[in-house]
């Protein structure tokens, strides 16, 4: 990826009838979030299904990216559904730990753990 090219990607797939999986890639900085936030929210919130988010392809997350994740997690919570994040790279994980995001959204290692966390 060209540094700073603000490339961000998003792919939505279904794990099963009750769980949506979103794969995010690239930089979740302000321009990146502006690119995908509407689609991210629209893909998850109206359906009201629990969701897991694969962060392994995310290279950087800024405060606006964290805000997007919290907003969706809170909206799903109001619909009695959950959001679980998994697989962040080490520097992304460190950023999420700094803001203690795991107190709000579970963050686990891989997809299997994420699906387990939905039912815990």
């Amino acid at each position, binding site marked *: 990826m060209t*540094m700073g090219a603000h490339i961000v990607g998003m792919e939505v797939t279904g794990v099963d009838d009750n769980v949506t999986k979103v794969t995010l890639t690239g930089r979740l*900085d302000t321009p990146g979030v502006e690119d995908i936030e509407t689609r991210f929210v629209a893909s998850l919130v109206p359906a009201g299904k629990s969701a897991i988010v694969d962060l392994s392809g995310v290279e950087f997350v800024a405060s606006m990216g*964290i805000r997007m994740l*919290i907003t969706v997690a809170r909206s799903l919570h109001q619909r009695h559904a959950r959001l679980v994040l998994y697989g962040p790279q080490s520097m992304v994980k460190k950023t999420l730990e700094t803001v*203690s*995001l795991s107190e*709000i959204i579970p963050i686990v290692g891989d997809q299997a753990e994420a699906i387990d966390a939905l039912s815990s």
Partner: protein
Amino acid sequence: MEALLRSLPPESTAAVSRQAVAKTSVAVDDLALSLIMLEGRQAGRRIKVSERPITVGRDHHVDVVLADSDVSRLHCLLSVVDGSVIVEDLGSTNGTFIDDQRIDRRAPVPIGALLRIGEHVFRCEQCRRRDVDRAEEQHRDLDRAANYVLSLLPRPIATGPVRTEWIFLPSARLGGDAFGYEALDAHAFAIYLIDVCGHGVSAAMHSVSVLNVLRQHALPATDFKDPVQVLSALNVMFQMDRHDDQYFTMWYGVYDTRERTLTHASAGHHPGYLVPEERSDAQPLKTPGVMMGAMLDARFHAERTRVPAGSSLYLFSDGVFEVLTAERQWHLSDFVPYLLQPLTRGTSECRRLHQAVKAVCRSDSLEDDFSLLVVTFP
């Protein structure tokens, strides 16, 4: 012509030549020459140029102030002569450039040409006069708002048991950072920094709300000497769902001048760093705690740290270290070693660090607010 201008993207307005104007029913008097800033901290700002010359430079007394170390205090003069923008370099150190060519002393800036002054790049455009006037009015409004935010920040303290200096550079006209400090009584001195997610007007409004609550001590039944009480009360007051889904991170500490201790607590903010006078290490000061506004029942924790004589506390927003170098993304661990470098004689510590970050990051990379507060305990 009006419809034509409206239908064109901004860059196309540059191509509207005076000949084209002449073919329309819109009088030339309804058009104005202006420079739109393409690169620089105020990107998007439009500056009207007229027959009355305007001064450009780094000094605060000029007409167009550019906060850019590559810009001379009084850098150049802009005016309209015979229907063209003319730039006159006033003996600047680093020069004035039109389409990458350094000008000798005085040169016309054709419509569509790029004018570079330091790291600031402008394009010369011809637009409807009322659009230019409206843009200038918006700029003045933002200026007034930015000045209001600045007026809320405390003055640096040069003497006494606690000394402070700071740098506050919003990425846009307005940013989401704020900080403050004050003596709570004869022996307790409160220090804090907040960083609202994102930047721009809405982030600035949020940070100002929080700042005013702190300045006015407008938290019910809260002891401001107790960081946990302060963070807990603010967290309840500024829940995201009642504040446009905005959260903020915060560091709050209280220095006891008798005990020489700093009691501090964090809310999702990266550490502050305590650096001893001999600059041997940077001690991270952070406690566990979620960002403000995200959880109603969030719990915060305080720690007490001994403050050696001559040490300095560094508090800063994430915009200080979340920058891109030519090769990669910088992180906090890349910035911290710079705290240990020796002070530079004749340069404030904040400016030294700002210049150090600017030197390593790409010119377009300081995208976030840059706020840095240094508190020294003699």
